[in-house]
């Protein structure tokens, strides 16, 4: 008995010293004890695929493909009465009117189709401003700053690191950008400008208009005539 227990103790010690305990970090791919169907031969988002030359599961659309809905709403794509709202209301997507000039006002119609086939009106309301605020703070404030004055973390860090980036970040409170028509700001969001890369892949057309609306609110807030500020608020501002 004592010989067996000694053997067991040594074996346990060896096992523990070899395997360690829970929580240790490792660079090795985790062991799958029973990997039944854990790894299936199927196409996955951003998956790797050795069959195709570019190594991706995702296939780019064939050249000349006409867009019909998107992958996030697959049911609409195959609906018999599908109408592509973007083709009914192109200026909502481009920010330009039929003559190619930037829209001076927000578009009157949205991309949402009413049951009758009409486009729903586009409302610039508190909900849109909230959406704009959320998106602005994630995607825009990094460079342009929470108050749109161009003092985002990018500028702060550029000063620390001595990068050239500091000179290229736009102060959106400047008269030049205040004078931009809504459509031009929309266009810059969608397609980029100078050193600013396009954000059209991150923001849907509605979200881009929401950001335009929120930016207009920020510009208003920074140029408020003092007599319009309520007395109670004025007391708290230094």
């Amino acid at each position, binding site marked *: *008995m004592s010989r*067996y*227990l000694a053997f*067991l103790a040594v074996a*346990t010690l060896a*096992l523990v010293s070899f*395997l360690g*305990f*829970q*929580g*240790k*970090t*490792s*660079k*090795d*791919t*985790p*062991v*799958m*004890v029973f990997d039944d*169907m*854990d*790894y*299936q031969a*199927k196409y*996955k*988002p*951003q998956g*790797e695929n050795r069959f195709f030359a*570019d*190594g*991706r599961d995702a296939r780019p659309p064939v050249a000349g493909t006409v867009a019909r809905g998107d992958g*996030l709403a697959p049911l609409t794509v195959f609906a018999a009465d599908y109408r592509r709202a973007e083709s009914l209301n192109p200026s909502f997507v481009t920010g330009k009117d039929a003559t190619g000039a930037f829209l001076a006002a927000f578009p009157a119609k949205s991309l949402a189709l009413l049951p009758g086939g009409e486009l729903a009106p586009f409302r610039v309301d508190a909900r849109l401003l909230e959406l704009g605020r*959320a998106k602005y*703070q*994630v*995607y825009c404030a*990094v*460079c342009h700053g929470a108050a749109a004055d161009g003092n985002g*973390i*990018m500028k702060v*860090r*550029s000063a620390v*690191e001595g*990068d*050239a*980036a500091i000179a*290229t970040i736009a102060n959106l409170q400047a008269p030049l950008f205040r004078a931009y028509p809504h459509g031009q700001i929309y266009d810059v969001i969608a397609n980029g400008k100078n*050193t600013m*890369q396009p*954000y059209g*892949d*991150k923001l849907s057309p509605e979200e881009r208009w929401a950001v335009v609306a929120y930016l207009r609110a920020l510009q208003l807030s920074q140029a408020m005539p003092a007599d319009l500020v309520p007395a109670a608020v004025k007391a708290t501002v230094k």
Partner: protein
Amino acid sequence: MRKLLAFLNRPASRGNFAPRAANSAPFKILVCLLITGVVVVAAVNEYATNKYLNVGYTPDQPVAFDHSFHAGPDSVLGLDCRYCHNFVEKSPHSNVPTANTCWNCHSIVKPDSPALALVKKSVETGEAIRWVKVHKVPDYVYFPHSVHVNRGVSCVECHGRIDQQVVVGQQKSLNMSFCLDCHRNPEQVLRPLDKITDLGYKAATPADQVKQGTKFVHDWKINPPQSCSGCHR
């Protein structure tokens, strides 16, 4: 012990067929089996679980992206998780960002750094960067990110404090009981929607958490599936 064995091996009053040591054999075997059983149960409990097999998986990535520098309100840059993982609110799949996303900033910040060579190559040629997947559930598990983050489940619940990690590793077990813990008691984790990417957020007290969680469960009509087909197809 010695006395016990001596008692078991005491001389029999009449003649024995078997040697006297055999008297204590059943007892000894029982003790050995018991101890072996305890060791085996302890070993299975420690090792045959995702908490050992998967937690701590911290592979080297092709580009040494440092989350603790870039991401989260407490980091140096304070980027929101969604700046890069921008489809997490819209899609079941939370995307690994495209190289273009890195280039939004890095086209003017250290574009020629050797650490960014692969990213630069990817931007110029379109060649994919082969990021190594860290958080993996089996292929028969369908976890939709958008549903969770739009209903008050923070990134931190499954991914841990990514905003404090230099190299991303798996911090939670992600096994089925881990999922069910939340699906059975969602009020323990739900938080306001504007705190989803604030990984360090905690309600003031556990009681407050239950209070606000219960409110969210009611207001958002949260009814997490516990049936097989909720997650398996």
